[in-house]
Each structure stands twice: as C-alpha cells, then as structure tokens.
C-alpha cells in the first residue's frame, strides 16, 4: 500500500490544486466532451480515445477529459494505463472522489482488494456521503472477507463466489439532481472547500456496524471449581452498514433581507483572502471557530496560512447571499467563487456566524446548503 500512502502524501502536499468545477462546466468544453461522451456510449472506444487525446492536446490539464480517458481505457481493458490516468487525477485533484472510486474498481478487477479498499476509503474521506463509494466498499469488504475465509479454511472459493460487482463511475460531474444512475451521490462534485481537500467538512457517519464474531466473555463468573471458563466464542448479531446515507440537500429557506453587517463582514473576509492577507483573513474567524477536521486552532491556522501563502493570485467572491439571523447569531449561505493559480471552483457555503464586539465572526464553515 506504499503507493497509496504516497498519494496521501501528495494529496496533502498539493492542497491548492483543487478541481475547478467552474472550468469544467464551461459550455465550450462541455460541447466537445459531450461529443466524446457520445462516442463512448456508442462503444467506439478506439475513436473515443483518439478524440479525447486530441482534446487533451489542447487542454492537457482538463480533469473531465482525463477522467473520460480513464473510462475509455478501462473499457478497452487497459487497466494499467487507466490506473495511471486515474492516479494522476487523484494527485492533481485529490478532493475528487470519482477517480478514487474508479481506481478501486480496477484494483478490485485485478483482485487487489486491499488497494481497492484504500482507494475507496480515500473517496469516502473526500466525500463522506458518497453512496457509490460506500456500496463499492461494502463489496470490497465482502471480497476481503472471502479471501480471509479462504486463508482460514484453506479453500479456494474464487470460483464459487460472485464476480466483483463494483460500480465504475462514468461521469466525473454527476451533478446534483441530474439523476445519474451510477454515481448516486447527490453532490459528488461539490468541492469541500477551495484548498481544503481531504477533510470532510460534513462527515456523515456511516451507521456503526455491530458485532459479528465470537465474543469471549472473560468476566463471566465460573463455578468455583472451574478453571476460569472464559466464555467461548459466540456470536452476536449485527446491523448491516454498507452504505452511508446520502446527504439530503436542505430546502432553501425563504431569504430574509441580507444583513448589511454580515455582508460587510463577508466582504472583508473574501477581500483579505483575495489579498492573501492571512492575518485579516484569520481575524474573520471567531475564537471558538469549529475547525473543519476537529484539529486544533493553531494547526488549522498554520494550514490555512500555508495554503494562502502559496504563489499565485487568489480571487474569492460570493453571490446569492442568504442570511437567517437570530439575535447575535446567523446562518449565512452563499455561493462562493474561488480562483487561484491551481484551480477554479464554485461551491455552496454555509457559515455559522456570531456577533461579538460589534463584529460578525465565523464560528463554523462548511460546504453544502
């Protein structure tokens, strides 16, 4: 699993290279991508590969085209080339769950379930609510279990057990409400936060699995003459747990009049961010700001500073501001547009804000609605 660790390391190192959804969704590109997509759907993989290569010659960094190329290579049964494409995607866009998922699918086809598991765990770490990844992970666990049983019982059940049925994700941008059949995640492409890749801001807890294997109960009191009957292995029922519940998009609330004070605070915040004024940027956060990954305030600050200090211009703007204020507290929603040297993205943000000393400060910041 060395290579996966490597990916993790790179992922952390390339915090700024977050996918640019905005770029990907530009209509001019989309047209071409759509054409290639059509070729893929017609099963003309060789032609599709040619098209996508041509497309990439002009836009070598384009995530969606590269993703499509990975799909085509997978369909053409060139797993190693596909792995290379998806792996580079995970390196360049570590916050995207889809390449991880598809890597896992290929690894699983190669019966490398341990690696498949690692990739899916990365996909889920990126997007805790990613249903396809959860389903695939459930399948991988079952296959790992089967391997473990084979080792335990010295049997080869490879023929007896069902083929791996992991789902390949075919659309990088399976947008919300598009009704994508394969990638079921409601907002799989929502970047966690510009320059905030691996940390799930909204970890949806997969339901905890309960017990399944023999349980000894050494505390059971034995008859006085008995040599410590520890309870022998016995069994405990479990609740199934494969899939995590997808996050339901919250209903948009009736927007009250935008609070001028909050808008002003947001302006100061985005402007400090865009100026790369770390001090002012951090000052926008309340002293009891809930760090997204639960890390310490100083660790979070160091990380933010590191990212903002990266070379290249940053531009942050917002629109569709929606404020629900309740006294000194407010829930603030908006669409954030972020652009840096490495990426460009738009995402929905929710801030919990509090007014202290006549200033609105950010107590919590997350992606979503």
């Amino acid at each position, binding site marked *: 699993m060395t290579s996966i660790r490597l990916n993790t390391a790179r992922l952390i190192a390339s915090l700024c290279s977050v996918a640019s959804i905005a770029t990907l969704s530009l209509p001019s590109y989309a047209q071409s991508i759509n054409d290639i997509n059509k070729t893929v759907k017609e099963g003309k993989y060789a032609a599709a590969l040619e098209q996508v290569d041509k497309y990439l010659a002009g836009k070598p960094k384009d995530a969606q085209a590269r993703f499509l190329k990975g799909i085509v290579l997978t369909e053409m049964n060139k797993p190693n080339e596909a792995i290379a494409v998806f792996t580079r995607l995970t390196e360049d866009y570590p916050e995207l769950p889809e390449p991880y998922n598809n890597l896992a699918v290929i690894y699983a086809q190669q019966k490398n379930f341990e690696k498949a598991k690692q990739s899916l765990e990365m996909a889920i770490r990126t997007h805790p609510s990613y249903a396809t990844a959860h389903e695939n992970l459930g399948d991988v666990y079952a296959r790992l*279990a089967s391997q473990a049983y084979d080792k335990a*019982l010295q049997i080869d059940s490879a023929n*007896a057990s069902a083929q791996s049925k992991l789902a390949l994700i075919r659309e990088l941008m399976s947008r919300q409400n598009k009704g994508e059949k394969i990638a079921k995640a409601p907002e799989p492409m929502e970047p966690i936060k510009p320059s905030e890749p691996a940390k799930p801001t909204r970890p949806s807890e997969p339901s905890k699995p309960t017990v399944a294997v023999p349980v*000894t109960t050494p505390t059971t009191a034995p008859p006085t003459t*008995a040599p*410590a009957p*520890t309870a022998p292995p*016995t069994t*405990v029922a479990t609740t199934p*747990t494969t899939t995590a519940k997808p996050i339901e998009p919250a209903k948009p609330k009736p927007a009250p009049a935008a609070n001028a004070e909050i808008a002003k605070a947001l302006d100061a915040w985005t402007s400090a961010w865009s100026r790369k004024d770390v001090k002012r940027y951090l000052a926008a956060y309340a002293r009891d700001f809930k760090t997204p990954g639960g890390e310490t305030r100083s660790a979070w600050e160091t990380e933010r500073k590191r990212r903002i200090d990266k070379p290249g211009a940053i531009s942050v703007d917002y629109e569709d501001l929606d404020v629900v204020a309740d006294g000194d507290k407010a829930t603030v929603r908006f669409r954030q547009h972020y652009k840096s040297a490495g990426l460009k993205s738009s995402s929905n943000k929710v801030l919990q804000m509090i007014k202290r000393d006549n200033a609105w400060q950010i107590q919590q910041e997350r992606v979503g609605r």
Partner: protein
Amino acid sequence: MLSTLPALLLLASTSASAIGKAPQHIAPQKPSARVAASFTDAGPEPALIKVFDSIKHNDLDLALQQSEAITRAFPNFRLAHLIQGDLLLARGRSLKAFGEGGKSTAGDKISSERINDLREEAVVRLKSYLSRPTANFVPRYLLQMLPEQKHAIVVDAQKSRLYLYANDKGTPRFVTDYYITQGKLGAEKSREGDKKTPIGVYHVTSSLPRDRLTNFYGTGAFPINYPNDWDKRQGRDGHGIWLHGTPPDTFSRPPKASDGCVVLSNPDLDALAKSLQVGLTPVIISPTIEWLSLADWQNERQSLLKIFEEWRQDWESRDIRRYARHYSSKFNADGQNYRSWIEQKQKVNTGKSWIKVDANNVSMFRNPGKEDHVVVTFEQDYRSSNLSNQMRKRQYWVKEEGSWKIVSEGSV
C-alpha cells in the same frame, strides 16, 4: 448472540467441573495486568484477547485493525483469518455464527468441519490463556526433579496446553505455556494407531533435527519414551509419540488433529527446544492438570521422601517384616509377585551380616490421571557382607488405605 452464548458458557463450565480436579487457585477472570506482564508472550493469545475485547465493546474497526496485525505477524494463523473474515463481513451484514461467512463461501462439509476446528481452537486458546497458573501453585506431578533436570514439561490435554516449568533448586517454577494439538481422538492412548495421546510420565529421548524430517513435522521433533515400563506392564502398545512442530502451510493445527503426538507451532517448538535436555527432561501428560499449593506440594513430597527413607533403612535392618510392610500385596515385578519377592529377599538376607543401601539422585513424579502412582527413580548403591552392586532403579508407589506401597520395582 444471546441464544448461543449461554449454551457455550454452559458447555465450558460443565466440562471443566465434570473433571472435578480443576484448580481453584486460578484467576477466573481476565488475567491481571501483573500476570500478563510478568511473562514474555510471543504467541498470539494476548493479541486475540484484545480482538475479542474490542468486539465485546463493539469497536469493530479496532478489532479489525487488531486482527490484521495478528495476520501480519502470523500470516498462516487461520483462526485470525477467520475472525478477520467475520469482521469484514460484519460491515455488510449481520452474522449469527462464528465463521459463518466461511460456510457460505464454500458451504461444504469440509469447511464446516474446519470452522468447528477453529472455533475449538479459539475456545481452548482463550480459556487456557485466561487461566494461566499463578506462581504459588504447581502441578502435583513434579514431586522431585533431579538437579540436572533444568526443566519439566506438563501437558494438559483437556486444555490443549503445554506448561514449561523450571527447576528452581527443587521447586518447580512456571516459565511459560503453549497451545498444543493432541490426538484426533483425545488422550489415554493404549493401542497402536488409536490416534490418542498417551497419559503418563515420560521423558524426551532424542532430538530429530529438521533436515531429517519431512515438512509435516515443522522445525523439529522430540520423541518421548512411550510406551514406558508402566505402559508395557498395562499391555499398551504403539510407538512414535513425539513433540513436534507444524507444517509450513499453517501456524497451528486444531486442538485434536494428530495421531497421538503433541504438536506445537514452530516458533513455540523452537522456543521450547532451548529448554529440552535429551534423556532428561520429564514430559508429563495429564488429562487435566491437578494443581497443588506450594504448601500442599511440599507436604506430599516430604511424606513420600520420608517413607522412601524408611524403606531404605528397613532394607538395611535386614528385618524382613519391616522391609515387607512397604510392599503392596499386588506387587509384581519381572514375574515375581509379593510372596515370591519377599521370600527371595528373606532368603538372601539370612546369608548376610550387614547391608548398606544408598539412594542418590532420587527423582519422584506422580503419574497423572486414573492410574495414580508415583514413579521413583534413583541410583542405588548396594553393599553387603557378601555382595555389592550399583544400579539405576525404578519403583512404582501407590497409596493403599492411606499408606504408600511399592507395586513394582526393578532396574532401569
């Protein structure tokens, strides 16, 4: 969970108490930190305990990590793979039986049997580990070791466990213990090919190095002297009972799987081998070990040493009544019964003006199980007015109506 748990608990406790000799001193619960820490544990039991503990506390992620650590350390440890399979499968669905997913994987009779074997292995491993002996109790069989016998082995067949004791200036001190495999059909061997492990007092007779063995025996083998004199007297036969290792494709074998040999994992056999002395190290195989407190052990040992000393003096006295009182009416040695033995001694004694008997290097081991007797072995230095000789002698003492009597005696 709750439907199977009580049944298994019942099984565990009844089988133990039915024997009626279970040690009372043994800590009935978890091993205390002190006990666990005072021994070096290279084996997998401490790690297994942690896995089951995590499962008990419903921390399946931790349990999985712990089981993965075990399979990394012991790649051929099938039991750990089975538990790992269960833990992985439990992420997707509920399990009702130990190793259930293994059954559904293959679904045949062989895998069911193997799962049962692994379940049995889990039970005995954990039970034995959690009831390790405390320092102030010893197996009653180790009454007196020779000074040069650095270690003694005591096997508990019921617990699938081998206990290594060091000879600490005459007092047995617990060193460590290992999971073992015994005969497919259990203990109390009596016939060639009966797939049982013998019960009795034996010793290691030789060491067979790995290059003289097939892979089946693992890293080494140590034959023991089954059938011993006593076994032969009882008409038992069979041969080739060894302590040996495990084939390379598995870390351990099920609790009951051998043709009568005592089988250890290769790392355990290698560790044990360092303490074995060919021709010397006692190997006592019991159905289930009887433990004595050190005080009780000392009493039993002193009373035997005392009666043995009386026997020696009574022989020197040339008073045949005094000598004869030490012999059982069921005495039998080399075709001689009580009467002929005593008559012959009386005849010999009358021709002598003096007898001097010295007994050196006395060892005493109690035979475990149903045939309760004490094997006394010593160097006898016999001198008299008309004859002197030296020999290694062995006596079998039994308790008859409260007194120790000799039922057999002869040179070794």
